[in-house]
C-alpha cells in the first residue's frame, strides 16, 4: 500500500545536502542529489544511534556524523567501515513544490 506523505518543500534542501523529517515517531533523511533528484532513507545510522541529517553529503554519499560510516543514499548500500548494514530507502516523488515520500 502506498502511503505518500509530504516530507518537506523542494527549496528546503540545498543541492548536495540532506534534511531531517520526523513522522509518527520515526526519523527520516531526505537528500537532494547534485543533479536535483530527491531520495529518502531511514534517518538513523545502522551502526549506532546518530541522526544522519547532521552528516555531510558528498556527491551520492552521506557520511554519518558520529563515526564517518558512509552510505550511498540512492540504494542505502553501506560504503565504508564501520557500517556494514544497509539503510532502508523509500520512494520519493516531487509534486509542485512538495517532496513526498512513500512510507509504505
Amino acid at each position, binding site marked *: 500500500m502506498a502511503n505518500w506523505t509530504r516530507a518537506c518543500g523542494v527549496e528546503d534542501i540545498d543541492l548536495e545536502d540532506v534534511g531531517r523529517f520526523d513522522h509518527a515517531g520515526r526519523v527520516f533523511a531526505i537528500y537532494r542529489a547534485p543533479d536535483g533528484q530527491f531520495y529518502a532513507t531511514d534517518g538513523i545510522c545502522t551502526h549506532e544511534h546518530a541522526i544522519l541529517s547532521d552528516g*555531510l553529503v558528498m556527491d551520492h554519499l552521506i*557520511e554519518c556524523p558520529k563515526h*564517518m560510516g558512509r552510505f550511498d543514499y540512492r540504494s542505502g548500500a553501506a560504503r565504508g567501515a564501520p557500517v556494514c548494514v544497509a539503510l532502508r530507502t523509500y520512494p520519493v516523488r516531487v509534486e509542485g513544490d512538495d517532496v513526498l515520500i512513500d512510507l509504505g
Partner: protein
Amino acid sequence: MSAGAVIVGAGEAGVGAAFALRAAGYAGPVTLIGGEAELPYERPPLSKDVLGGGALKPIRAEADYAAAGITLLRGRTVRRVRREAREIAFEDGGGLGYDRLLLATGAAPRRLQVPGAEAGPVHTLRDAADAFALRAAIEPGMRVAIIGGGLIGLEVAAAARGRGAAVTVLEAGPRLLGRGVPAELAAILAVAHRSNGVRLCTSCSLAEIVWRDGVADLRSADGSGTLADLVVAAIGVAPRTELAAAAGLAVDNGIAVDAELRTSDAAILAAGDCCSFPHPLFGGRRLRLESWQNAQELGQLAALNLTGGRQAVSHVPWMWSDQYALGLQVAGLPAAGAATVARHHGGDRLTLFHLGADGRLVGASGLGPGNSVARDIAIARRLIGARAAPDAAYLADPSASLKALLSLLPAAAG
C-alpha cells in the same frame, strides 16, 4: 600451502586488518589472536554506554569470521615472536608459523606510581573486564575520585555522575584535556562538568594514597586531601611493545614502523595504538595515536601492505568524545597550529580551525550539542588532507559556506 597471515591483537586494528586481507583478495590462512575471551568489541563505548549499563558492541558478528575464513583465537596470549623461524609461540604452549605478521597489540593503562597506589583497589579502564568491574563498583551516593582529567577520566566522570555518584577529578596539569584538545574547548567542558556536579581540581598533583577501612584519602602535593570510596586512575596508556622489543624490533614511543607500517623486519607490520609512524601530511613527524579511527585506518592499510601494497599513511587523524549532551570532535593536529581561528555558531556550538605557520590548515576541533559540529569537522578533515590554506576571515564567518571550500580543491578529496 603458505603459513599465512597471523595477526596478534583482536582490537579495532587487528579485526579490521583480518577482514581487509580478505577484501584485498588474500587467499592464504588468516589467524587472528586476541587475549580476551569476548568476541572482539568496539572500545569507545566502554567509557560511555557500557559504564551506563549498555552491552558490548561487537566489531563483527561471530558468524562473519567463519564466513570470511578467519580463524579467531580468543583468550590466547602470544609469548614470543621467533623471527628466524617465522613463528609465534603461545603463553599456554604451542606455536604457529607465519609468512606475514601483524602486531596490533594495543596499549595498556598506566599505573599510578604514588605511595599507597598498590595498597588498595585502584580501577583502570581499558578493556571490557575493566568496564564491567567499574560499572559494578559504582553506586549512587558513593564518592568517586578520578585521577586524570583527560578524555577517559572525563567520560568516566560523566558516567559516574549518571549513576548518582559524587565525583571528583584530580588533574595534575593546569587544565583539563591538556594533551590533544584546545584550551577553549576544554574550558567549556569544564563548565559542563561543574554544572553537572563534578568537582574539578586542576594543578592537583597526587602525592600519596592512604587507605583506611576501605576509604582512600588522596593526598595532594599541596597538602589538600580528597576522600573516596572508589578510585579510578585514568592517566593514559603505554603502547604494548614487549613482544616487539623482545623480538629485537625497533621501538620508539611504540613499535617503530615506516610510513607503510613495516617494522625493522619487513615481514612484520604493526598497526593501531601500539605503533608510531611518520606521517607525510605533517612533515614526516612521528606520531603515535590512540584513537578508534587511527586503529581502523592503520588496520586497513596494514592489510593492503601485507598483500604486496606499497601505500603510505594518509589519513587525517580524527577522534570524538561524548560527555553529557556535548559532542567533541578533533581532526588533524591542533597542537601543530600556530594560529587559531574561531567560528562561533551561536548557542553553545563552537568550531576552531588551527592554521600552521605557512597558513595551511593542520587541525580543527569543535564542541556542541550532540553531533552539531560533525559537519564542520568532516569538511575540515578533507581540507587538512588536501593541504588547503583557507582564508582565516572566511573560516571565522559562520555565514560563509565551509563546504564551498571543498569545490576549490584540486582533486576530489573523498
